[in-house]
């Protein structure tokens, strides 16, 4: 074995060790993506809107087969506008008020509309 060989071996061994550590470092954060990316409106498992957050204070209309839903946005806070056109018989989602972080969701059972955050997950689930 020559001196140069040894250097090459040591070099590759340290590269391997480095990538291993780098991977461990990256992977340890995986599963919990720290920041909230967007709010998603899903209807019957299809995405109808994906709004990046934080958002300036505004109200937007989202059109879909159910009619129109008015979403109020402010920073990371989201709510269904209480004066949304009545697309829904029980109006629970209109009365729910603001959600501000995951895993909070707004769910309209009769219309199968689900409004949820993408990203910003800090727990795997919420028991209630």
């Amino acid at each position, binding site marked *: 074995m020559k001196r140069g060989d040894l250097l090459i071996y040591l070099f590759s061994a340290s590269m391997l060790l480095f990538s291993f550590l780098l*991977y461990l470092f990256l992977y340890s954060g995986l599963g919990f993506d720290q920041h909230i990316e967007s709010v998603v409106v899903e209807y019957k498992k299809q995405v109808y809107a994906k709004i990046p957050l934080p958002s300036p204070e505004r109200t937007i209309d989202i059109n879909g087969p159910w009619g129109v839903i008015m979403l109020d946005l402010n920073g990371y806070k989201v709510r269904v506008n209480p004066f949304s056109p009545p697309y829904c018989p029980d109006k629970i989602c209109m009365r729910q008020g603001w959600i501000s972080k995951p895993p909070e969701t707004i769910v309209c059972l009769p219309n199968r509309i689900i409004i*949820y955050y993408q990203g910003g997950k800090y727990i795997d*689930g*919420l*028991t*209630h």
Partner: protein
Amino acid sequence: MRRIFKYLPLIILASALLFAFWVNKAETKPETIRDIAMDTFIEITTYHQPRDTASEEILKDFKYLESIFNRYDENSVVYDVNKHAFEKPISIPSIFENLLTESLKLSDYTEGHFNPAIGPLVDVWRKVIKGEDISNLPDINIVKEAISISKTENIIINERNGQVSFAIPGVSLDFGAVVKGFAVDRAFEILKNKGIERAVINAGGTIGVYGSPPGRKYWRIGIQHPRKEGIIGVLNLTSTMVISTSGDYERYKIIDGKRYHHLLNPFTGYPTEELLSVTIINKNGLLSDAVSTAVMSMGLEKGIEFLTQKSLMAIIITPDLKIHFTGDAESLFQPEL
């Protein structure tokens, strides 16, 4: 020493291969689907290889359960049973017999505090709790009559024929308290059969964690704060478990300063008092669901005695917002500051 150097390239190559294999294996991506079934929000996250259909299969099964156990759906099996089982024995599918038999066992186990025959009482309170009729609370005599009908003794199962009948008119089964836990148990079976390594199932607040956590030490499950937005603490879990919570904040109406919620004490006929919420942590979802409901009805002293005697893990929150633990639950709990 010389020998080691001789094999060094091989050793490096082998470790590189092992590393690559390990990375590749660990790289199962989480995928989440959301939908509504069993009248509640469902969220299924599986960590799987591409093109796996376990989540879809679980969702399909939840919808199947709904078609059988939703007592408000005129096309469901339970609706048919409730409507006609006094007139004549009704043939039931084996899944129905299975959940009914297990529920009756759990009713005995919880000394009647979980009661699958509570339908008549639920019907007495339903309009009040939904806020459709807040002008008058149910008359005490109506409540008393409903209690007398809401007895499991009135259910007769004929195992040989796969039939069920009721001894008196008016009996009504309600599986609302346990169907979500039952569904999570079935979801775990599907995951097992499909060879899925890990998953999180959220069936309307009954949460199942399956397998080991992804690249970290614990699954983290938040427990809803019973009196405000957000969580009161987090459960750190290392392996498969079902976490079920019953709380007085879920569906309720406040009338004259008093809270009327959907969890009824089968003995008094009124919404349970004393406890804000009960969380049960157990490997069996059906048991978690039934016991969390039952302990709400038992109250603090009786509840803790029962849970301790059965060695069950529970987290109980009382109106002073004090947190009580049984089993090893305290060691899993991390308060939210």
